């Protein structure tokens, strides 16, 4: 299995622990990751102000991937959704494709519609297989009791992504359970972290983060597992502010799924950059 890795902007900017652990774990599973020879922002951050700019940014990335002849996987669901959306729009709408191709020709590119885009967690479930992941677990995390936060864009909009029921997400749960850990259910698991609106009004994610983490803590989960750099930044980075607002301590470690899987595959916490997390999962790691 071989994919082109689309890194996006926020991961190399400030979520290195996610990239470090994902590269280690996917490599160990025998999934070959080829870096994009060149790339740019997927377009998600500025779609709000310019649909056309999003189209052009995403289209350029798709063309570069087509030249490599490889499907894209991303670590960020926002990138996956944006690139997939553009890919579908351009594949299905000939008039739009012609307009965009006219502009792309100015920089020597052409969209042909030859590749697909997926988030890595979806790739693990659909292409690699949960059973094969279980085969690679050498240290089942039987004493780990966690909760999941799938986030919005891996499965929304439902009609576009055609993955799982976003109101009742199960893919990440299956991936977590494959490590031997227990994944607890809690109320309103599909609630958004508020990340995309944090630049407009920080109070929104602070409220949402406190709200969700209180429920996660309430059911007795010892950590929250994420597969999105933005969700991770919200639940980890905003947690102290949410605690202040709530007037109580939460102290819920927020762990990237590849870190959890890597532990179950026998890797050390240091290799998986668990020491780079702001809320140290010390108690959890003692259970290994």
């Amino acid at each position, binding site marked *: 299995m071989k994919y082109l890795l689309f*890194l996006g*902007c*926020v991961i*190399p*900017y*400030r979520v*290195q622990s996610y*990239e*470090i652990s994902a*590269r280690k774990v996917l490599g160990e599973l025998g999934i070959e990751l080829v*870096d*994009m*020879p*060149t*790339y*740019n*922002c997927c377009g998600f*951050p*500025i*779609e*709000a*102000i*310019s*649909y*056309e*700019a999003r*189209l*052009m*940014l995403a*289209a*350029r990335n798709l063309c570069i991937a087509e030249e490599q002849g490889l499907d894209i996987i991303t670590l960020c669901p926002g990138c996956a959704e944006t690139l997939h959306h553009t890919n579908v729009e351009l594949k299905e709408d000939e008039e739009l494709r012609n307009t965009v191709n006219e*502009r*792309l020709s*100015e*920089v*020597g*590119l052409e969209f042909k519609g030859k590749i697909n885009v997926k988030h890595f967690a979806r790739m693990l479930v659909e292409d690699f297989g949960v059973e094969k992941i279980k085969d690679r677990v050498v240290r089942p995390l039987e004493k780990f009791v966690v909760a999941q936060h799938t986030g*919005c*864009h891996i499965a*929304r*909009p*439902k009609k576009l992504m055609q993955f799982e029921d*976003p*109101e009742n997400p199960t893919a990440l749960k299956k991936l977590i359970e494959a490590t031997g850990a227990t994944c607890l259910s809690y109320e309103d698991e*599909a609630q*958004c972290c*508020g*990340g*995309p*609106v944090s*630049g*407009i*009004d920080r109070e*929104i994610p602070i409220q949402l983060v406190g709200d969700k983490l209180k429920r996660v803590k309430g059911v007795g989960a010892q950590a929250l597992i994420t597969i999105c750099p933005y969700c991770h930044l919200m639940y980890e980075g905003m947690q102290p502010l949410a605690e202040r607002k709530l007037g109580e301590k939460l102290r819920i470690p927020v762990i990237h799924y590849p870190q959890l899987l890597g532990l179950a595959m026998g890797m050390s916490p240091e290799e998986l*950059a668990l020491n780079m997390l702001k809320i140290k999962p010390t108690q959890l790691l003692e259970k290994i």
Partner: protein
Amino acid sequence: MDEREASTVVMAKNTGRSGLAVEKLRQILSEDSSIWRCSICFTCLDVCPRDAEFTEFMIALRNLAALQGIVPTVYREQGSAILETGLAFKIPESRVKMRERYGLPPLPRVDAEPVRRLLESVDFDKLIQRGEKK
């Protein structure tokens, strides 16, 4: 008038409305409007029993506001960063150098020039500049 510069006033006048209707449209497309508080989570779109694509409307309204020079700071900053560097954040050199220490391969080359040209082909640079005048 540039076709991209369709204003709320023109829209309202074209529909034969004025006064309150114009004022309402102005409010909806202003920087304080709740349209900017949507987190684009697509939940409303997914649960709508009538398949109304609310998220798409929200994006369209924001696009319309931006065409009139209403671009909240966060979008102006990220838009400027993309025009300048190709990425939404200016990644500090120190962060790029740290990659080697973490055992990460170098960051793929980001070729800002073709990115800027593609954005200029849809007047994104002008959109950001107009936003700055505000």
